[in-house]
């Protein structure tokens, strides 16, 4: 009989998620202290972020989280076709998120606002801190989203081939946990960067 430890696998995934919380936690701490240090600059600089794109991406990520969660239900019920469709919608949402980010970052880079640019160097320190944190935090989040997308693509094919099925789906659950983590981080990034102006 094949050796399996689903509880152990999930426990491992959670411990990994804790390290991710620490990683982003440190950045949130830097954000809090810098915000306190340069209140007016953070206040004004945040106005230059596109709150509409931020809101749109929040909605897209929430939908993608729901479809991953629903794909677990579909696999548990043995509905392979629906599970594949739901995972595909999730990946589609990830694509929409990245396209939005492309336009958002693209616009800023176009006007010369990126780390190391002449414009950035000429700005006040508070502004530099805000945009540096903005690029680093949303960039690190985006990296997680891309990795999550790759993991979910592999999982989609495994669901389709039937190697993830109603009796064996811990990989889908763990991939889902990672995707929800990406969502969780965005839940905090969005109001802190885009809304509080």
């Amino acid at each position: 009989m094949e050796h399996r430890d689903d509880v152990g696998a999930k426990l491992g995934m959670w411990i990994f998620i804790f390290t991710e919380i620490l990683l982003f936690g440190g950045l949130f701490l830097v954000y809090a202290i810098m915000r306190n240090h340069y209140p007016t600059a953070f206040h004004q600089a945040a106005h230059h972020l596109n709150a509409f794109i931020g809101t749109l991406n929040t909605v897209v990520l929430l939908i993608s989280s729901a479809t991953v969660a629903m794909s677990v239900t579909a696999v548990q019920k043995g509905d392979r076709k629906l599970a594949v469709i739901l995972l595909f919608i999730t990946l589609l949402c990830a694509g929409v998120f990245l396209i939005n980010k492309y336009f958002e970052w693209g616009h800023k880079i176009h006007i010369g606002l990126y780390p190391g640019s002449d414009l950035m160097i000429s700005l006040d320190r508070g502004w530099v801190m805000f945009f540096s944190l903005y690029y680093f935090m949303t960039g690190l989040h985006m990296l997680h989203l891309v990795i999550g997308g790759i993991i979910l693509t592999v999982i989609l094919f495994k669901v389709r081939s039937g190697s993830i099925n109603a009796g064996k789906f811990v990989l889908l659950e763990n991939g889902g946990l990672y995707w929800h983590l990406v969502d969780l981080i965005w839940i905090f990034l969005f109001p802190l960067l885009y809304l509080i102006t």
Partner: protein
Amino acid sequence: MHHESQHITPYTTHIWVLITLLALTFVTVTVTWIDLSALTVAIALLIASTKAVIVLTYFMHLKFESVLFRVLVFMVLLIYTLVILFILSDYLMRE
């Protein structure tokens, strides 16, 4: 390994959770339009934390996991919050 009794979350639950999360997003966007100065950050963080708890409970399935997972996640988040608060209070009280 023995298999734990499976819990299947109905599709409708996930749909309702999604609707709740979208509603909270709408609230947080609307609230920031109103200028509440110092309260704005607190309200935004409160709504974000509520959304996070909902995601952890339903999407991340903690409500239906064993006590081990729930205690573990709760303790880690508690320690994390305390560490953040201690560091911030240390920073704010320095002159």
